[in-house]
């Protein structure tokens, strides 16, 4: 069955069409100032000019460097345009002059430059766009920190942020040449004063030029260039509908394994890659067998991968059922042209049984050149935990011997009723038992022991190991054959059972994790749980980072709070967050970090970054743990997404409520502040004409009301700001009521106030200030709404361990059915004549404060219908037991 030929991708064709007729852009990309981008661009321009191409210099900053300046000599330079700006004259590239001159190729330095205000485009790369659109080829230069997508990452570890950035889309349409010099050399050049830096920036940039920064920047530049090449190649392949290997340039893959010679393979691949100047990838194929590798072997795989990274390779791990299939699919995906393989010195017997990996790869991958290198080490390398099972245990041999002996005894006891053939059948029992229970070697041993015993005891001539009848040879061979077959069969069944058990364990682990975390509703708890579970399951240090309100990544949770991330780690974390790709140790990016950071993604949105690090400093995650880690990451991302959506919903609700409150507050404040003020001002004015005790009482009363109102506004502001700080202590309620009644005495005037508490009312725990304000408002409310001259009773009761303090008034009471609404902010219940002034802030404060202290509030009409009853309820957790009597007498 032939696969349908791949169809050209219309989008890719469209992009190619747009490119037709346009000029071509080539960007000289550098890791840092001073690597020689301008020099490189000018040399290449000069070379093109020698080839007869019409080249002009649009703009070049030589910064007075002699070698660079020398290159501009003899080249045509388009004069710059003078732009007056704030009393100075700036010299900008003259776009119109270049367009009019219409050269084949123009050199435009500093692609990220920002043009002087008043220029046609704010940015130089927009000028370049126009040149390209006019069909003019452009050479330009840019430093990696000016690339928009990398701006954050660079700033995070260099601490230097540049404002001038170039969009990635510009780079994507360009041919990119990395101008690269080793960091040491650049530092030398810097010391020798060969790098131009704006004077004021010298000090800030000193830190920028550290070796570790330069190495990281260089890595970023190289990677970005590789990315651009990949993207364009992919476009070309798609446009042409090429399905096969695209041999545009060489790509080398080295397949590594757990054997000791793997590092040699990597070095060999590096030599091949260097000689071809080709990118290369180290590949580890993770087969089910990888789960059986010992820790030492895992460590070796990780070390080999790290070595490959250090030598400049990309690394990849692909899961596959067998090595050959894994290598083939990766070669196709990566469009590799060359493969480096190791040939282990396995026995011919092993290759006969398993087939040679090398042979099958070569046979099945005709497009790829395969380099086969001999490897030291071989099949005799122990295979971790499987080893004891292969050779069998002493116990197995003991049991087997006993079984054979037992069968021999039984058979000799029954020999007079059994014929020789049936005796042979009896010997199958120990052979099958040993092979299935203890593996091949023990099974073979059982076969040999059984045949010897059979031969010696039963086969004539009895008592010798001679076989007289050739037919009986068959019995011995059959016994041995059964041993081999049974052990192979059981080994396979056991391997499958192991696999199933492992996957069941993983599933159970995941299910447990999911069940727990599904119940979590706040981010901190979820983050902690994710960290703890990943640590428990993988045995690594874990950090979880997310973006809070600011632009920085915040630490949400960590298994070891003392562990600090250094700048390199932060850069890796930021990279993972910004690009959605893994970064840090064991990945392709910023591998110098101790941590491996994996993005938590929901769709395209990155919600956080999970970092893992091993305590030993090795690669944090073993190859066989990767599937579990990625499941955990997927689940964690889902949890974070759910929490984010919930928080968003809550935010919307909160904002809506707050808006409603604010509107109500404004209308109420203007009314409630102005009313008493009006009364005070009017009364004071009247005092000029006559001095009467009534006027003075009015002023006093209204001023007190104003004071109470301001206090309530302040309280409410504290509630709304969430700034209530509890200062809880033991409080006697009669004490508290006494204090509040004294302060509210003005509002209570004209009422008969009675405190009714049993002598043994227990102490409660509350914040004295908050409780005081609650009581003030309740008393104030009762004083205002109670009918003049009536009693106000403050009643404390202890019922079933909970204490209830009620303020009872005699008055109109509350509208039936709407009693509890009275606690809502700005509710002044209509339908009764509760119009005695006040915003309704007071009771809302009572509720907010009471709930902050763990108390409850209740409003209802008195059962006798005489008025309203407001109660504070102290649940038993807030009720104290009296201290021992001897402390009190």
């Amino acid at each position, binding site marked *: 069955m032939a696969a349908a030929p791949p169809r050209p991708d219309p989008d890719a064709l469209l992009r190619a069409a747009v490119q037709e007729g346009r000029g071509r852009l080539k960007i000289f990309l550098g890791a840092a100032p001073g690597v020689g981008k301008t020099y490189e661009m000018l040399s290449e321009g000069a070379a093109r000019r020698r080839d007869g191409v019409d080249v002009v210099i649009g703009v070049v900053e030589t910064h007075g460097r002699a070698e660079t300046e020398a290159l501009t000599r003899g080249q045509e330079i388009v004069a710059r345009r003078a732009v007056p700006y704030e009393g100075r004259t700036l010299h900008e590239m003259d776009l119109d002059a270049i367009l009019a001159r219409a050269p084949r190729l123009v050199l435009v330095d500093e692609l990220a430059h920002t043009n002087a205000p008043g220029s046609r485009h704010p940015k130089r790369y927009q000028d370049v766009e126009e040149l390209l659109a006019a069909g003019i080829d452009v050479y330009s230069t840019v430093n990696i920190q000016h690339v928009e997508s990398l701006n954050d990452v660079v700033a995070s570890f260099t601490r230097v942020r540049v404002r001038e950035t170039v969009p990635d889309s510009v780079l994507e349409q360009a041919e990119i040449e990395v101008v690269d010099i080793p960091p040491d050399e650049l530092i030398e050049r810097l010391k020798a004063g060969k790098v131009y830096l704006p004077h004021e920036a010298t000090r800030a940039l000193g830190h920028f030029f550290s070796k570790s920064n330069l190495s990281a920047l260089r890595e970023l530049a190289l990677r970005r260039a590789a990315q651009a090449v990949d993207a364009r190649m992919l476009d070309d392949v798609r446009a042409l509908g090429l399905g096969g290997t695209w041999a545009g340039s060489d790509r080398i893959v080295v397949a590594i394994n757990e054997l000791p010679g793997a590092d040699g393979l990597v070095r060999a691949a590096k030599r091949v890659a260097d000689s071809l100047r080709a990118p290369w990838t180290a590949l580890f194929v993770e087969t089910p067998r990888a789960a059986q590798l010992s820790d030492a072997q895992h460590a070796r795989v990780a070390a080999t991968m790290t070595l490959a990274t250090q030598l400049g390779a990309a690394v990849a791990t692909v899961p596959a059922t067998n090595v050959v299939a894994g290598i083939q699919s990766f070669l196709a995906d990566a469009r590799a042209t060359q493969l480096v393989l190791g040939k282990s010195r396995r026995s011919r017997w092993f290759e006969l049984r398993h087939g040679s990996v090398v042979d099958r790869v070569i046979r099945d991958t005709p497009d790829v050149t395969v380099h086969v290198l001999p490897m030291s080490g071989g099949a005799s390398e122990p295979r971790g935990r499987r080893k004891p099972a292969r050779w069998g245990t002493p116990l197995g041999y003991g049991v087997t011997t006993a079984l054979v002996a037992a069968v021999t005894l039984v058979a000799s006891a029954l020999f007079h009723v059994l014929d020789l053939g049936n005796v042979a059948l009896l010997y199958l029992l120990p052979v099958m038992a040993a092979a299935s229970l203890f593996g091949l070697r023990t099974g073979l041993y059982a076969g040999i022991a059984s045949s010897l015993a059979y031969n010696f005891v039963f086969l004539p001539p009895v008592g010798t190991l001679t076989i007289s009848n050739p037919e009986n040879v068959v019995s011995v061979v059959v016994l041995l054959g059964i041993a081999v077959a049974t052990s192979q069969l059981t080994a396979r069944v056991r391997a499958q059972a192991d696999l199933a058990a492992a996957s069941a364990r993983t599933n159970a682990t995941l299910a447990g994790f999911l069940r727990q975390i599904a119940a979590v509703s706040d981010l901190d708890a979820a983050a902690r749980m994710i960290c703890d579970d990943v640590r428990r399951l993988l045995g690594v240090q874990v950090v979880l980072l997310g973006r809070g309100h600011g632009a920085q990544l915040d630490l949400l949770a960590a298994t070891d709070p003392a562990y600090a991330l250094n700048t390199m780690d932060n850069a890796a974390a930021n990279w993972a967050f910004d690009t959605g790709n893994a970064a840090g140790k064991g990945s392709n990016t910023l591998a110098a970090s101790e941590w491996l950071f994996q993005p938590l993604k929901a769709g395209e949105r990155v919600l956080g970054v999970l970092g893992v690090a091993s305590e030993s400093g090795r690669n944090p995650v073993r190859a066989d743990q990767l599937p579990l880690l990625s499941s955990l990451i997927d689940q964690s991302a889902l949890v974070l997404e759910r929490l984010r959506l919930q928080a968003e919903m809550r935010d919307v609700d909160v904002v809506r409520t707050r808006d409603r409150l604010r509107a109500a507050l404004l209308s109420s404040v203007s009314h409630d502040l102005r009313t008493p003020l009006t009364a005070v001002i009017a009364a004071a004015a009247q005092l000029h004409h006559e001095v009467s005790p009534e006027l003075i009482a009015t002023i006093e009363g209204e001023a007190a009301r104003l004071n109470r109102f301001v206090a309530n506004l302040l309280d409410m502001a504290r509630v709304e700001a969430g700034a209530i700080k509890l200062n809880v*202590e*033991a409080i006697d309620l*009669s004490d508290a009521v*006494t*204090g509040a009644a004294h302060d509210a005495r003005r509002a209570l005037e004209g009422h008969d*106030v009675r*405190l009714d508490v049993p002598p043994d009312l227990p102490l409660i725990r509350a914040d004295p200030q908050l409780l*005081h304000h609650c009581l003030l408002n309740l008393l104030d409310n009762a004083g205002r709404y109670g009918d003049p001259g009536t009693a106000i009773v403050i009643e404390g009761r202890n019922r079933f361990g909970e204490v209830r303090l009620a303020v009872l008034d005699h008055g109109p009471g509350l509208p039936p059915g709407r009693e509890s609404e009275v606690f809502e902010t700005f509710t002044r219940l209509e339908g009764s004549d509760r119009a005695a002034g006040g915003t309704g802030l007071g009771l809302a404060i009572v509720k907010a404060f009471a709930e902050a202290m763990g108390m409850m509030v209740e409003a209802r009409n008195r059962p006798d219908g005489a008025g309203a009853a407001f109660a504070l309820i102290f649940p038993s957790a807030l009720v104290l037991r009296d*201290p021992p009597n001897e402390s009190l007498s």
Partner: protein
Amino acid sequence: MPATILVVDDEPAIRRLLRNTLLRAGYAVVEAEDGRAALHMAAAERPDAILLDLGLPDRDGLGVIPLLRKQGDAVILIVSARDAVDEKVTALDLGADDFVTKPFDTEELLARLRVALRHRGPAEAAPQVVERGDLRIDLDRRLVSRGGEPVHLTRKEHDVLALLTRHIGRIVTHEKLLSACWGGDDDPRIEYLRIVIRNLRQKLEAPDPVGSVIANELGVGYRLRSD
């Protein structure tokens, strides 16, 4: 000769109000608008009492208290809009005699001032017999009666009441009450004091909380009302 009162406040309106109130009550008044002037006036005029605002333009009023204390034995009364409990306690610990929170009742301010001036100087003996309404407290004979009927108090109740009575009209902090009455205990706790005060109220006060004798100064201490 009338007692001299130094008023320290940066608000001219408050200074004017206090000056008028104090002059009406028969005191001589000097004024200062910031901490520096206050220290200068305190040294120059040797006032009998100082009404001190904590929110001064040049320095924190709390810091001025110990400096004023060093200069003499003037009564220091804090008059401040600040309402934080721990500031009140700090002010008392630093040597202030009492505090009044703005906005204040001028009559109450005068009453506090009178009490503080009366108790000025340790030499002056506190009254041994105090009568408030139907309540009579005789410290010497350890007798308390209400409406002529003797009231039985436990030892702790008597200790607490005696301490409050000796400082009648003035605040006695929780700490002072606890250390004076439960000083021998390993871990004197405010619960003890609360229970004893609760019992005292039941024995000595009418069920009308507005007219209670023992005033509860939130988070700071207690005061036996003098008027």
